[in-house]
């Protein structure tokens, strides 16, 4: 962004970017006093890491089976299904790291195990409906912490609001969102059946509809459809709504990034909400909403690919085809001669592995699903992938993005 010849400003930045000021005397003690006094002390998470994995695995399994029941209509014997669900959850032990390569596939491979484990774990899944594990909406607002606090606390103190707002929202559903939101009710039905049959001790509140849909609409869609998105919602951050949604989607879908699975309350309602957001975003007439840097576009493209990959019918997919093709051609044009993408707005700076891997995933997915022209995109993806493979080992999110891309690139 900075003019290349502006050494003076660069020098100042380099000198001061890690500058530290001495902390005020007694600063921590005052802070601690304030923490104790105004009770911001959050209830510690008692859920162990293993347990959280189990919760996320259970969420995946419940939803996957819900989708399976709904779309393939195989729910001929409720009690057998319940047994299968229990078995599946028990099977979803976190032994294989982040490898949820295909939620539906995992569900199909389920085998019942001992009854004790099954009962214990289905209780874990019941708590999903009411627990305040962060939802995808919070992932969206991850970077604008100062604006979400009041919404969050509101949600925690008035749980009964969820039911009301969820139902009033669904009454207002447009036809397009309605198509997808029917998935939600099916997975909820499965969950409620599980509660009835396997755990008579479940509290009444556990059968409330999941809150994720309503809260995502409040915090997500309201913000995203707002024409002033860039100044209001983003605050100090320069990110487009589409990028936030894309990033949230890519990160939140657990088979993409295993560790984010715990952020999921209800995957299907998230998908329908995100679908709606992206759809509305694509209809936006405000072109400034669509000024993105390569990293933004990469996230958006990857998020769209993730989303379309999960939509069950071609008709639903086709709603996003134009948007996806548009972003794919834009991002493909920004590939640099070395095969890699840059992170910055003006394609300057050093190569960015995360961006490149995300683009690889997004473009390879499109080619493999006959949405993008093979001749136009295949070689650029392969060039990028070769360049990535020639780079040193990656860590963190770049490595995650690479593992996301690898299977799709392999199918090219």
């Amino acid at each position: 962004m900075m003019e290349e010849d502006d050494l003076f400003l660069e020098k100042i930045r380099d000198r001061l970017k890690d500058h530290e000021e001495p902390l005020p005397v007694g600063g921590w003690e005052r802070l601690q006093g304030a923490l104790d006094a105004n009770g911001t002390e959050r209830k510690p998470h008692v859920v162990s890491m293993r347990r959280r994995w189990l919760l996320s695995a259970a969420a995946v399994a419940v939803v996957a089976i819900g989708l399976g029941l709904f779309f393939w209509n195989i729910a001929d014997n409720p009690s057998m299904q319940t047994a299968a669900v229990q078995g599946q959850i028990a099977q979803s032990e976190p032994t294989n790291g982040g490898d949820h390569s295909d939620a539906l596939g995992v569900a199909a491979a389920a085998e019942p195990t001992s009854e004790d484990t099954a009962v214990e774990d289905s209780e874990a899944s019941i708590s999903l409906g009411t627990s305040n594990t962060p939802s995808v909406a919070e992932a969206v607002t991850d970077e604008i912490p100062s604006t979400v606090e009041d919404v969050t606390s509101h949600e925690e103190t008035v749980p009964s609001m969820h039911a009301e707002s969820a139902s009033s929202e669904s009454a207002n559903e447009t036809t397009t969102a309605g198509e997808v939101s029917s998935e939600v009710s099916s997975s909820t039905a499965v969950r409620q059946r599980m509660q009835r049959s396997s755990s008579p001790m479940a509290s009444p509140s556990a059968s409330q509809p999941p809150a994720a849909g309503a809260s995502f609409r409040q915090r997500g869609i309201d913000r995203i459809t707002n024409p002033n998105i860039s100044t209001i919602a983003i605050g100090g951050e320069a990110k487009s709504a589409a990028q936030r949604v894309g990033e949230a989607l890519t990160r939140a879908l657990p088979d993409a990034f295993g560790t984010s699975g715990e952020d999921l309350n209800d995957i299907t309602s998230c998908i329908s909400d995100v679908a709606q957001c992206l759809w509305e975003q694509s209809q936006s007439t405000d072109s400034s909403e669509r000024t993105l840097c390569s990293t933004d576009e990469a996230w958006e493209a990857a998020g769209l690919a993730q989303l379309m990959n999960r939509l069950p019918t071609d008709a639903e997919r086709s709603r996003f085809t134009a948007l996806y093709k548009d972003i794919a051609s834009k991002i493909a044009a920004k590939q640099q001669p070395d095969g890699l993408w840059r992170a910055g707005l003006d394609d300057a700076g050093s190569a960015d592995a995360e961006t490149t891997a995300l683009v690889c995933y997004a473009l390879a997915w499109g080619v493999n699903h006959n949405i993008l022209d093979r001749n136009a995109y295949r070689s650029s993806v392969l060039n990028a992938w070769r360049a990535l493979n020639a780079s040193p080992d990656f860590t963190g999110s770049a490595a995650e993005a690479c593992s996301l891309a690898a299977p799709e690139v392999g199918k090219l």
Partner: protein
Amino acid sequence: MHLRLGKQKGAWSEQQLAEGCSRGDNDARRVLYERYGGRMLAICMRYVGVRETAEDLLQDGFLKLFGLFDKFTWRGEGSLSAWMSRFFANEALMYLRRNDAIRQSIALDDTGELPSDMDRPDEMPDEVDTIPEDVLMRFIEELPVGYRTVFNMYVFEGKNHIQIAQELGIQQKSSSSQLARARAILVKKVNEWRKKNEG
């Protein structure tokens, strides 16, 4: 006290700190404050220019931040401090915006053209290296608020003038003229300091 012995200050990795803070672990919070507080205070100082205000922002900001760790997603080494830096820069910016200080100062200032001698005054980037950090900090803190804000967003947050203009609700050309003026003042101060201390 014996509990602390197991976790010396330096023993916490960034990721462990983030996990500790999201559990509400008091030791993790203390280490977080002590390890990153100085840098966060410097960010606040760069924006608001007054130590008392910056210390208030630091205190309030940490209180708020401790409640937000469930929204933080670990994205590799450095992601925690980057997240915190953005958070505090945003807090400081919101403070300035609440008082509408930025727009008023820019509106008042924006009437005239840039004086020609301010366009590109004599500069020697290497001279910046000889000046102590706290002197450079003071130079930035002494800038008028509008200059200072645009300067911080452009230089330290890597934003371009389109983004800055959008976020501050000003014209894009105001953003670039604010930056040019801030830059000219800093060059002048650097040169003056050098003459006084070396000549």
